[in-house]
C-alpha cells in the first residue's frame, strides 16, 4: 500500500484540498469506506424521511467493499485505488489487469485495464448531499487507472461498463462508447485508446 498527494476540489469553498491517492487499499480502508458510507447513507435516508423529503434512488449503493476487497486483495490482477481526505475514504476503484481485451477495431485483442468498480462516497453525490463535499474523486481515480495502464505496458488502454448516469461524464472525457453489453446488465461499454488516454492524463 503506497500513498501519494493529490488534490480535490472542495465544492462549498471552491478551493482545492490535499488528499491521498492510495495504491492498493487494505482491508482496514475497505472497512472504513463501507462503515462510513453506509452509516452516512442510512442517516441521510432517516433525515429525509423525518423531513418528509423524497430520497433519491441511487444506481449503486450495495458496495460491500470489505467483502470484495477481502477476496481480491491478495491477488495480483486485482489492483485497487482509493482516495482519502480528512480521514475519510472519498472514493474507491477496483481494477482487473488480466483477462480483459480491447473491443475497438483498431486495438481489438490488446489487453486493457478493466474498471470492475468505481464509486464515490455518498456525501460527494449531489443527489444525496447538497452541496456535495468534493469534486475530482472520479477524475483523479480514472487518471490514476489510465496511468497504471501505461505503467503496465497497455499504453493507457482501459475498458469499463458505465452506470447510466455516468455515461455523459465518460463521453466528455473522450472515451469511445461501444453500446449496450447484454453480458453486463445492458450497461454501456466504454473504452480508451492510447491517444484518448494521453488526452485524459494530460
Amino acid at each position, binding site marked *: 500500500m503506497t500513498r501519494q498527494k493529490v*488534490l480535490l476540489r472542495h465544492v462549498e469553498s471552491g478551493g482545492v484540498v490535499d488528499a491521498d491517492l492510495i495504491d492498493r487499499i487494505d482491508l482496514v480502508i475497505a472497512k472504513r469506506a463501507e462503515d462510513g458510507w453506509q452509516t452516512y447513507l442510512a442517516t441521510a435516508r432517516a433525515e429525509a424521511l423525518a423531513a418528509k423529503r423524497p430520497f433519491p434512488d441511487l444506481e449503486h449503493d450495495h458496495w*460491500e467493499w470489505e467483502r*470484495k476487497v477481502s477476496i481480491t486483495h491478495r*491477488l495480483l490482477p*486485482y489492483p485497487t485505488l482509493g482516495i482519502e481526505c480528512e480521514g475519510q475514504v472519498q472514493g474507491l476503484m477496483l481494477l482487473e489487469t488480466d483477462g480483459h481485451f480491447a473491443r475497438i477495431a483498431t486495438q481489438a485483442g490488446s489487453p486493457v485495464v478493466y*474498471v470492475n468498480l468505481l464509486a464515490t462516497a455518498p456525501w460527494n453525490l449531489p443527489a444525496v448531499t447538497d452541496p456535495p463535499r468534493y469534486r475530482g*474523486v472520479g477524475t483523479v481515480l480514472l487518471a490514476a487507472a489510465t496511468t497504471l495502464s501505461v505503467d503496465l505496458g497497455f499504453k493507457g488502454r482501459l475498458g469499463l461498463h458505465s452506470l447510466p448516469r455516468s455515461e455523459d*461524464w465518460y463521453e466528455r472525457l473522450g472515451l469511445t462508447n461501444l453500446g449496450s453489453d447484454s453480458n453486463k446488465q445492458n450497461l454501456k461499454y466504454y473504452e480508451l485508446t492510447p491517444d484518448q488516454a494521453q488526452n485524459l492524463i494530460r
Partner: protein
Amino acid sequence: MKLKIDKEWLDRKLAQADDAQAAAGGTSFDDLKKNVERRIVTPSVIAAAQSELGKVVRFVREKKSMSRRELADLATLSDEEIEAIETRRDYMPSLRAIIYLADALELSRDRLKELSGYVTRNSNATEHSSEYKFAANSKPVDTVSDEEYEAIRALVEVLSEKK
C-alpha cells in the same frame, strides 16, 4: 504509478467533464466471487479432470489452494488415490475414500456419495440426480466451454450444501 495532479489540471478536467456522477461497474459480490474463482480454478484445470467426481475434487482443491499432497494428508488418503480420482476416467474410489474426501473438502457426504455412484438409485433418485449430469468429455481437451465451467461450479455449490 506516479500521478501529477495540480490545481490547473483539476480545474481544466472538471470544466471539461463534471465528475459528480462518476461510477462504473456496479459488480455484485457474487459476480466478483465467480470472477475471482475463475482465475484460481481456470477452465483448463477443469478440463484436465476426466470424471465429474474428478472435476469437483480438483475444483474445490484448487479453490482452497491445496496441493494433492496436502489434500491427501488432510483426508488420510494416499497421493496416488487423489491423483487417480482426479485424472482417471473410470476410477472407482472406495466408500471410505469418498467420505474422507467429503469431510476434507467440506462437501456433503451424501451428495458426494451419490455423485460417485454409491447411492442405490430408485426411479425417483435417478430423476433427482439428473441435475448433477452434464456432458462428459469423450477425449481430453485443453479447456472447457463457459457452459461446462458453469455446470461444474453449480455442481460444487450443490455438493457444498451440508445436508
